[in-house]
């Protein structure tokens, strides 16, 4: 989870990612961020996030991104 936190902090240094659970709904992450995250997660964890999982719910918080990645790692 710390790796993902670092990725997020690289994108927006001024957001408290451990608390925020409305990254998408409040427009904090934009399409650049999502594309960047998907790329970095692919490189770092060797998992492919497919379109059916690129949803607002899965990217709304650090917690939800981490559970998405964990799920993919388990598959």
């Amino acid at each position, binding site marked *: 989870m710390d790796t993902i936190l670092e990725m997020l902090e690289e994108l927006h240094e001024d957001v408290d990612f451990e608390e925020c659970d409305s990254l998408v709904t409040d427009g904090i992450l*934009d399409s*650049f961020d999502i594309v960047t995250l998907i790329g970095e997660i692919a490189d770092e964890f060797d998992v492919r996030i497919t*379109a059916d999982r*690129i949803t*607002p719910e899965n990217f709304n918080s650090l917690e939800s991104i981490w559970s998405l990645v964990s799920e993919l790692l388990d598959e």
Partner: protein
Amino acid sequence: MKNVLEYIENTVGRVPDKTAYSDGEESMSFSEVYNCARAVGSYLLHTDAGGAPIAVLTGKHPHAIACFFGIVYAGGQYVPLDDEMPEIRIGKILDNVCPPVIICDSKTAARAEAFARDHGCRAVLCGDMFAHEIDADALARVRRRQIDTDPIYMVFTSGSTGVPKGVAACHRSVIDYIEALSSTLGFGEDTVFGNQAPLYFDACLKELYPTVKFGATAYLIPKSNFMFPVRLVEFLNEHKINTVCWVVSALTMISSTGTFDTVKPEYLKTVAFGSEVFPPSQLKIWREALPDCEFFNLYGPTECTGMSCYYRVTDELSDDEPVPIGEPFPNTDVMLLVWGEDGSARPAADGEEGELCIRGTPLTLGYYNNAEETDRAFVQNPLQTHYRELIYRTGDIARYNARGQLVFVSRRDHQIKHMGHRIELGEIEYTAAGAAGVTNVCVIYDGGDSKIVMFYTGTASKRELSSYLRGRLPRYMMPNVMISLEQMPLLPNGKRDRRHLSEIYKNSENA
């Protein structure tokens, strides 16, 4: 036809109640667009703001388009601004344009009022303008004096000295472009556009004007949909969208994430893309998913009003060759020129690389309040010296392939295309050089991975520099990688050694 407003005037009587523009939630019919535009025009004329450039700072909403047409009704030029642009950039644009009025909506009102105070002008809600009484006589008086070489808009593009350049285009260039584009891509009354381009770029001409020309419909797809590929395709299907003209990165986001395994666009008939290289592997996925759809690669600089060249993708295209930019639209001429040291030029030989130069009606009026940059880019045709004839030097290097089609090769300078946006690396460097604790800075572009890479020397931390840039550069210009160096590698002539920097980057963990 000499005025772009004739498009809507010829259409509104035929399909008054049909939806012209919609963002999926709120829509405007042709008669609403027509009446609101005439109200805006009347308002501007009654408040002594006719014939002037008018800034439009609103969300991506049908109302903004009615304002654009309204400004043209008043004989002026619309200057679309983006609510997400950093304050300093908007400030520079307003300094250049000096509009008497900034049109805003309820969401942008506070910001627009602050700008209006700083720049000595008025902020007006578009809703207030729509409610203004239409003065048909005043509008007719403006129309009698309007000619087709009058400018109708200004859009701002990246400038290497840190100041954005405003490209001004006239009725005639827009009409010429819309006619050529519409016949080539086969637009008509049944066309349902799914617009992706922001309204502050000339890229949105493709949807805005054919919609009023044919009585078609354009959906302004909310930006947030472009983050979520399945939702985006569902939006296309929900609104039966059959035509899209998108940047490559929006299309590859769908194809590279396996979206077609979940959902396919059911109505798409025409897919146009441009501004960037479409990786052949991704284009293949699209063509296999939509075998009955036509694909077009479009190419063109803002300085020549939208797009100048097109290529219809066919089976002749092999998997490993770059998608050509094809041939110029009717009534546009493209010359590949090889320039000599003395400023003379000759046409490139068969297969030889040359600078792509454009000739014809689509040439815009140049850069607003910037004669120097205009004269540098818009020059006398060197192959014809008998009368005054300007060509636009794009700075793009191209060649003809064996089939006689134009193929883009590279840039002459440090201008790049990143996520569909045209960026001067110099503008990023210039901006970063202004930060405290930065002594030298150089920016390179990793085209393979689409990353803007910034090198700098000085005491500033990456975090400090990034937060400085965030307040000054549009989001798409932000460096993706920052590398702090002890010393900037230089060439013997004192210039920064970009090749060496590119090696440092490739050997770093960021590549």
